[in-house]
């Protein structure tokens, strides 16, 4: 597993949880799980294994998570791009559905292809594309300050 894959796992849990401690713990669990999956099936696409691992760890930890209460510091190891307004993402992470949140992070932040996401979740590519489309439009609405545009 390359460093970019480790970074992908870390970013997934950071942007879905916005809690540095929980994100670190979940990232470690997902990393071990993904390593085990790689050992068992070396031919499987890494994107699919990352989706499977992160989704399993997410389902295991998300009930303990209280969305809307971000807990992280600027020097916690996640280096956000300069000039980024994280407030939009905070609103989106708080209000978006789980399907939209996970789909947009996998697809648009850690850049896993929709087909790999679909294989990892066992869904069709159209379903994933719809979820991503819906999430992107909703995020755009949050950027405009009107979350009621996209329901």
């Amino acid at each position: 597993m390359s460093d970019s894959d480790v970074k992908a796992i870390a970013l997934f849990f950071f942007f879905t949880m916005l809690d540095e401690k929980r994100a670190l713990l979940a990232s470690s669990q997902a990393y071990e799980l993904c390593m085990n999956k790689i050992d068992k099936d070396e031919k499987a696409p890494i994107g699919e294994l990352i989706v499977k691992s992160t989704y399993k760890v997410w389902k295991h930890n998300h009930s303990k998570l209280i969305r809307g209460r971000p807990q992280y510091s600027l020097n916690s190891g996640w280096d956000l791009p300069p000039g980024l307004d994280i407030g939009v993402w905070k609103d989106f992470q708080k209000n978006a559905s789980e399907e939209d949140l996970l789909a947009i992070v996998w697809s648009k932040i850690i850049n896993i292809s929709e087909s790999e996401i679909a294989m990892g979740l066992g869904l069709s590519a159209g379903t994933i594309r719809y979820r991503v489309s819906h999430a992107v439009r909703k995020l755009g609405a949050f950027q405009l300050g009107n979350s009621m545009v996209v329901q």
Partner: protein
Amino acid sequence: MSGTPTFFSKKNSRKISSFIGIELLYDYLAKNLDPERSKAMDELIAQSREMNDEIKSIQRSLSYLDHLSGTQISVTLANRIKAPTSYYQGFLKKVKFSDWPVGIKLGIEALFVSTLIFSSIIMIPWHRINNMNFTSSRETLLVELEREKPKIAGSEAEISPKSVAPESVNAAVTFQDEGASAKGSNADKGSPLETKPTAPEIKVENSKVEVAKSVFPSAKEVVAKSTPTPQSSAKTSAENAESKAEAKNETKSEAKTGTGQGFLYRGSISVSNLPVTSQKFVDKIASLGGRRAGEVELGWKKGGGNYFHFTIPEAKYETLTSYLGEYGKLKIQRERHERVLPDGIIRLIITVSEEKKRP
């Protein structure tokens, strides 16, 4: 209806509604639509201001997401993520357990589970579970002893017959005088018939041993501990040995007396010149080997007569009755009594009264 164009035909131009257009807008921007739908979307976007605003929103959103994806993680954080989350995982990773052959893995797991099971079996206190005794007390009840003070002379006394000579037993035993009181007696305290307060009394009932000694305090029970001190152990052993020996003697005595049923000969006689006759009776009984049985002396004055409570060898019974019959009409009844005497010894209570003179 025949002149209107068919909007759902593929051959003719398809117009897309704003609702469908918004749903297809993301795919339109991602160029995932077929050329025909893309052309229809172009026409819709050119006509609809709402669609243009939506396109700008999506593009802004995608730009924001692209900006977010530029987030980096530090090397330290990446190393922390790669580090094992537990010592167990770290151990497995260090020994490369996942690379081991499957047979060895299963063998180690089976060995671990079997060791765990055997350890549990050994550690569980089965003897306590069987006895249902979860207390931490280490006391063990060996024997229950009941000690009582011996009966004081004058009260009801229980003395078991001994397997000794009848004469000596006759001298050792004592009885309660019927109708006689200790105050009114002028019995000789130094008589050999007096009960010694230190004589032990033992009853054997089932497996319970009762020991009574005048020198012992009136303790109800003695519990011997499983780890006694040497002194107390020796003392307890001596007591047990003494109890066993005396119980054995008593058992032999009872066996010797046969059924265990005793008898009392109760009689009366009216004589003339009572004081002289009574003294003759005393001398005769003594000459026949009789001994007083109660506390009062032979010929004790009771009311208007004299009271004789004594034991005598059974062989002398006929001689005594014939002698007494010479002085008056002797009436004797043989009664069952709980007191058991050794073989060859009988007990009598004879009341001698002054014969009434006829007017």
